[in-house]
């Protein structure tokens, strides 16, 4: 906590009046980080990188976009054809949404596997879920802006979800639309909110990092650090590791952006919006497919909407559903298996969401929906009681140093925390 001695006089002058350099040194440089983190711990910073990319590309796209039903589609085509590097900005933004979700979903499933949501990180976990919900709202409204067929009908179907609310549903939908159907007022407000919400996300990210830095990162063995020998300073060890991971991640991101830019898109969205004709098969973007599958699995309108929101809601109470004191799945032989079943279940839901709702797809969708909720509401509470965890290592250092005799000599004997 002691303020570092800065060599630059100006830095010293500022730091004495506002300790921003001390703060950055403390939180980004010397910040003690468990030394056994694997590459799954890279995805938090990758998500942060994607947030910055989305905001920067978005600001420049907004300089050439027109939020009006008569001009929106054409202004996007103008960005693609006439604006210098407009095609690149738009494809970085469109594919960036997908890669933002890829980073965040891996980050989330990392947390599920290693029990990162458990005491004392419940708030950290819940703030992350708030970010996810804001991301979904932002992505949905952004998808409406090009005003293609999928934009229009996606907006119609999603806003109509709120009509399922008893009594006030229809009034809420009219309020969301600013009219009696998705139209120009809707497009205008979606543009306004699409510009606003990313900055709300930045705010929640700050809270997320605050909560993170209160107790520090969890780690693959899921036991607390017990002294200096268990951790490394964040810089240069994890800045270097995160930057290497970023290089790999960006290879994939740019690979899609430049070589398959429409891979994640729907061809129907290159048809201008037509309020009189619904496309034969409406699908949301891939990152929303599992929720869409849950929505369609329930034969009742309100029930479907409730379960869809419940799929995220149940994650908020996860820290109190999973009462097992052991965090990492490495030491939970049964949880480790149901974890992978849950991963498979989510992939199945995504696959069902991409297919039309008839025949076998309905049956499989219902089974997968039931299993999703059973995992959190039945299996985890039962495992908390009946599962017998494997013995935990005495410290983070122990499994790291096992068999690596040479390194052992440089490590001081463990201090008792």
């Amino acid at each position, binding site marked *: 906590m002691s303020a570092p001695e800065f060599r630059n006089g100006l830095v010293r002058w500022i730091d004495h009046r506002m300790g921003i350099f001390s703060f950055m040194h403390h939180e980004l440089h010397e910040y003690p980080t468990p030394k056994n983190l694997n590459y799954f711990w890279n995805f938090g910073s990758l998500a942060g990188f994607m947030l910055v990319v989305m905001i920067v590309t978005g600001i420049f796209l907004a300089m050439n976009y027109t939020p009006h039903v008569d001009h929106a589609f054409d202004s996007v085509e103008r960005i693609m054809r006439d604006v210098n590097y407009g095609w690149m900005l738009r494809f970085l933004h469109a594919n960036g949404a997908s890669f933002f979700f890829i980073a965040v979903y891996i980050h989330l499933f990392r947390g599920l596997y290693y029990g990162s949501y458990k005491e004392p990180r419940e708030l950290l976990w819940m703030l992350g879920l708030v970010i996810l919900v804001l991301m979904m709202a932002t992505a949905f409204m952004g998808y409406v802006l090009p005003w293609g067929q999928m934009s229009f009908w996606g907006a*119609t179907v999603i806003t109509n979800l709120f009509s399922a609310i008893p009594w006030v549903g229809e009034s809420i939908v009219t309020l969301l639309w600013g009219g*009696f159907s998705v139209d120009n007022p809707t497009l205008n407000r979606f543009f306004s909110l699409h510009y606003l919400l990313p900055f709300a996300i930045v705010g929640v990210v700050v809270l997320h990092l605050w909560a993170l830095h209160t107790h520090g990162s969890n780690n693959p063995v899921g036991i607390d650090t017990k002294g200096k020998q268990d951790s490394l300073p964040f810089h240069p060890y994890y800045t270097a590791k995160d930057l290497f991971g970023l290089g790999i991640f960006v290879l994939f991101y740019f690979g899609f952006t430049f070589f398959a830019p429409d891979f994640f898109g729907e061809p129907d969205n290159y048809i201008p919006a037509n309020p009189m004709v619904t496309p*034969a098969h409406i699908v949301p973007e891939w990152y929303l497919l599992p929720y869409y599958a849950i929505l369609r699995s329930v034969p009742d309108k309100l029930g479907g909407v409730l379960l869809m929101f419940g799929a995220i809601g149940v994650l908020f109470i996860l820290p109190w559903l999973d009462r097992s004191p052991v965090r990492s799945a490495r030491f939970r032989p049964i949880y480790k298996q149901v974890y992978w079943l849950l991963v498979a279940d989510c992939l199945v839901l995504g696959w069902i969401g991409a297919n039309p709702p008839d025949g076998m797809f309905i049956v499989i969708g219902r089974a997968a929906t039931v299993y999703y909720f059973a995992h959190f509401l039945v299996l985890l509470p039962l495992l908390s009681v009946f599962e017998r965890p494997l013995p935990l290592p005495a410290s983070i250092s122990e499994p790291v140093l096992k068999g690596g005799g040479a390194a052992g000599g440089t490590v001081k004997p463990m201090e008792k925390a």
Partner: protein
Amino acid sequence: MAHAGGITAHEHAGAGEPGEGHDATRRDFLYLAATALGAVGAAAAVWPFIHSMNPAADVLALSTTDVDLGPVAEGQAITVVWRGKPIFVRHRGKQEIEELAKTDIATLPDPQADAKRVKKPEWLIMVGVCTHLGCVPLGQKPTDSRGEFGGWFCPCHGSHYDGSGRIRKGPAPKNLAVPPYEFTTDSTIRIG
């Protein structure tokens, strides 16, 4: 604490707490009343912002549509626009009307007699928006699939409507809505 003696004299009015009980109660009341007034004021200030998102006067002004039914022959259907939504107008034949009158209403998810859904039985006028999640059902064009009940079929989530626009099968909870309309002459209507 200089006035401690005087306060103690009024102690019986307080909650029985020693010392400053009376003053604390008075302050609590003022504090709560001021906070409550502030909260009500803040809530009142929020309303103009929320209401600005509701339909504006120019949007509401576009709320009637006149339709000339003259050119629509029996068996034909047309789609007109009212409030940005498609309105289905179908000219039905005698046989179809009689068939629909025979439907056992008790078996319907949203029970309603065909006669209650029309002003003149040969003219069926409905909002062409699926009551599930707002897609436009197929069935207006001769080449469209009309679903299992010979009316309309919503391709988004598989809702089937009959020749009266009543929901028969699928996730939609309600029949296709009938908009407010009136016959201005024998062959023209005003919707809205």
